[in-house]
């Protein structure tokens, strides 16, 4: 190892392990986790809304009013992103399971594509739902 001596001089080594120093596939992976956890936490609210929307005319209107609130719309937009990201990254995972795109350049490209698609889906469905 010719550069072992060079490396030795650089000690102590400070490793920055923050989210934004992760390689792109790592960012997609941690966001898959975060979006999954967010969706889990939102599940009771979403079931409550779905329940109400079907229960009666009055509760359906109450759900509509609740969702018309700007704060609720912000939360919905966040959840649309979480679902879009989890869906897209999940599909990428299934393809990787089938050994499609497992070499490093393809995995990096599909990770970039995942981030782009989930943001595009969020903007589209956010727009379709809220405006």
């Amino acid at each position, binding site marked *: 190892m010719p550069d072992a001596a060079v490396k030795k001089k650089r000690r102590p080594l400070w490793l920055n392990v923050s989210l934004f120093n992760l390689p792109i596939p790592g960012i997609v992976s941690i966001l898959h*986790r975060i979006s*999954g*956890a967010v*969706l*889990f936490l939102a*599940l*009771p609210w979403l*079931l409550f809304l*779905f*329940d109400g*929307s*079907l*229960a*009666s*005319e009055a509760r*359906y*209107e109450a759900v509509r009013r609740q969702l018309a609130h700007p704060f609720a719309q912000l939360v919905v937009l966040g959840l649309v992103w979480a*679902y879009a990201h989890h*869906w897209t990254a*999940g*599909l990428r*995972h*299934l393809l990787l*399971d089938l050994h499609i795109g497992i070499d490093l350049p393809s995995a990096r490209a599909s990770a970039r594509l995942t981030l782009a698609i989930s943001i595009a889906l969020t903007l589209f469905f956010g727009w379709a739902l809220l405006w």
Partner: protein
Amino acid sequence: MGAIVVMRSLVGAHYGTGQWLRQRITAVIMAIYTVLAIATFAIARPADHAAWKALFASGWVRVVTLLFLLSVCYHAWVGMRDILMDYAKPTGLRLALYVLVIVALSGYAIWAVQIMWRG
């Protein structure tokens, strides 16, 4: 008679493989349901409570939606278990959170049945 050889697996009982497979099966169910639901709303967006209720009154929509909701609950259990296994290090805390997640998700699953099959 030869020696009795007891083959014993040293890597658990492969619970992980089963969970892995069920995570994928539920994922595929949810992914397909999502596309079908979006297509349904794109073709004819239910405009009011009557149309919304009529949509979920149809037998197969109920079955497929309940299948989706139960998949959500099972998939969430596998995912939350993975997360807790990685971040909730003290055994007592981890087990307590497992119980909390299982109780919550079982409740949501029963709630989902109630929503889809209310008289």
